[in-house]
């Protein structure tokens, strides 16, 4: 066969007659898949994708939400990282709350869950008693705590002073303000208690019986039977706790505002973080920058910082299973 001759395809290697049909089938499958996915896709695009893109876009803009945005390059980023003294305290407070509050909430939630599952009589009462505070609206709960812990007139300090115990300044003392917020969150531990109770009641009884036959004590039973069974739930509690605490806003704002004694009303600019910025969290700073100071660009930078940290921590927790489970390959 000469090189210039056009080669003819042998009949054995016939063209693929089913290709268009296959393509149609595949396209149909893709459309079906997309159809089923579309509610999520629309939701994701509108409520996550677009806001994230907008946040990145405005972080490079000067924008006061009234005039047209103007490109300012890295000015907002430089301002946040080098010229905003409140960024450091806000980030520190947020991370402090993430570490301390999440850890204590998991420990307390699990502890109360264990206690309630062990109670033989009056289970309903104790479940209700521990769960009820969780139903209190966060603002109302915070108002009540600030009243109870008022260093000058609060009943808690009056009792402590009557007993001769030095009374802390609670929400009015920079050293005690964050621990007071942790106490407030532990008071409303009902949500985690319920989750842990469900997990604990799910542990097969036979395993406990077998462990007892092997002579395991209470600690050994918890260590080798209970804990391995509930680690996925603990991981869930840790991850959701971290994400929620990264967005900690309402209780800190209300507690700081009330404890500072500022009269709330028109004309009052509420500065978050009382006392001494000890309760200032990144979300409060985002609000303050974006909506009080018309500084949308810097607020977007802060939001992105928070997003990146939350993503990084969550990814790390999921990959390493928070040290609770062996990491998957």
């Amino acid at each position, binding site marked *: 066969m000469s090189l210039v001759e056009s080669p003819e395809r042998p009949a054995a290697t016939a063209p693929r007659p089913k290709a268009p049909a296959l393509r149609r089938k595949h396209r149909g499958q893709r459309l079906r898949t997309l159809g089923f996915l579309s509610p999520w896709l629309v939701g994701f695009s509108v409520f996550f994708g*677009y806001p994230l*893109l*907008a946040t990145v*876009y*405005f972080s490079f803009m*000067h*924008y*006061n*939400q*009234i*005039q*047209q*945005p*103007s490109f300012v390059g890295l*000015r*907002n980023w430089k*301002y946040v990282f080098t*010229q905003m*003294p409140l960024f450091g305290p806000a980030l520190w407070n947020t991370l402090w709350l993430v570490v301390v509050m999440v850890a204590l909430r998991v420990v307390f939630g699990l502890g109360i869950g264990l206690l309630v599952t062990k109670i033989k009589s009056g289970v309903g009462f104790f479940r209700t008693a521990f769960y009820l505070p969780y139903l209190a609206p966060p603002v109302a709960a915070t108002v009540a705590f600030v009243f109870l812990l*008022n*260093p*000058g*007139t609060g009943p808690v300090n009056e009792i402590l002073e009557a007993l001769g115990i030095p009374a802390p*300044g609670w929400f*009015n003392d920079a050293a005690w303000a964050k621990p007071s917020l942790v106490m407030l969150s532990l008071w409303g531990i009902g949500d985690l208690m319920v989750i842990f109770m469900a997990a604990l009641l799910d542990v097969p009884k036979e395993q406990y019986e077998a462990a007892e036959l092997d002579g395991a004590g209470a600690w050994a039973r918890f260590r080798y039977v209970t804990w391995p069974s509930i680690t996925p739930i603990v991981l869930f509690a840790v991850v959701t706790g971290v994400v929620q605490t990264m967005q900690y806003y309402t209780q800190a704002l209300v507690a700081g505002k009330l404890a*500072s*004694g*500022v*009269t709330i*009303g*028109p*004309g*009052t*600019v509420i*500065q978050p973080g*009382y006392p*001494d*910025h000890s309760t200032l969290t990144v979300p409060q700073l985002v609000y303050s920058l974006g*909506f*009080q*100071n*018309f*500084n949308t660009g*810097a607020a977007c930078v802060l939001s992105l910082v928070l997003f990146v940290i939350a993503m990084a921590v969550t990814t790390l927790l999921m990959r390493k299973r928070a040290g609770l489970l062996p990491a998957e390959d």
Partner: protein
Amino acid sequence: MPRLRMRICLSAALAGAGLILSGCANPSVGSDRDDPTQPVTLKFWHGWSNPAEVKAVDDSIARFEKLHPNIKVKTVNNVTDETVNQALRAGGDDAPDVVSSFTTNNVGQYCSSGMWVDLDPFMKKTGVEKAKVFPKTFLDYTSYQGKQCALPLLADAYGLYYNKDAFKEAGIERPPRTMSEFKRDAAKLTKRKAGGSYERAGFMPNFRLYQNSPDRLFAQWGPTYFDKKGKAQLAKDPRTRQFLATQRELMDAQGGYAALEKFRTTFGDEMSPQSSFMSQKAAMHMDGEWRGLMLKEGKAKFDWGTAPLPVPDDQADTYGRGYLTGTVAGIAHNSKHQNAAWELVRFLTVDTDQVVRFANAIHNVPSTFAALTSPKLDADPSFRTFIDIARNPHSQAMPPSINGGQYITAFQDFAYNAEAGKVPDLGKGLRDLDAQIDADNLQSVN
């Protein structure tokens, strides 16, 4: 090839997103082409919430509607600045046409951002000569860099309320006029219980008490916050250190910061009968002119009087001065009825009879030359003190800034640390504060 296609798709997506985003950043546009003689309904948002105050506003609106039968006004009360800001950003049919703010702090922000429209063209159209109507101080705090985007809707002056019975008991004949008299009297008036805890403070100087924001007491020194170039100069101005030192001395004369701060937490709400002055936990108290009306309505169980706040010893000739602020009114940038809205703003801020009646009704200081000298103005001597403070040429308001009250907040934060003794090097602290204020201002430049 697939990689190239992906790049093209990604570029197209990013370009599209950019277009969408910049489109979404388009603010809604108002109009000043409307005919104010045509029937229209205006929306007016304000911050007053007390029933008597709301009634006074509604009565004012009724008088306006009588004068302008074609204009109906729907009022919304108890609105905060943040709510107004959000409404003006979002726009839409429910956004207000006429807006007001209880603080002058944010005027610079409203003018520089264009959120409130420039009123000068409207004044020119209707023949209002602002310099002849309003005192200069009031015009200064309602404008920014030549843009008059607000007008004063009554003013607030800050002075001293004192418990005459406590003064008599302590053998003090008149309210203090200088800072050294102030410290001496505060110490004399302070009473303690057997256990050492406070029964009464002479004067609670701590900055977190109710209206004790540092900028208000600092006005007695006549500070200059910014130089001619707009740079912060608190570190350069020796009066800043004098003021902070005096405030510390006032605290030390009565037991120190920590003890007073603990006592402060026992005070009731500012607007309640349990407030510090009303419950006689403080013998002297800095406040605005509205406190007098509250003391009367609350039937205070003691004899009280008013006076200007003391001044530094080396500025004794300025006695009578005080801190000025007030409510401001303006027109929303996205209002479609700006000429009709101007008619309402003009009536509320310029009409002498209206200003006097409204001032008498809510016990605020009038904000026009004519109203300040009106014979119909409330003749109560305790109120007159504040009228005199407002008229005093040495009285001061906060200078407007491009980002509103951000520099005041920065100063407050610094003052909180300074009063608590957490600023070891005051000079360095003030220099850092100036640098911070300048950086914040630069960040707000478009």
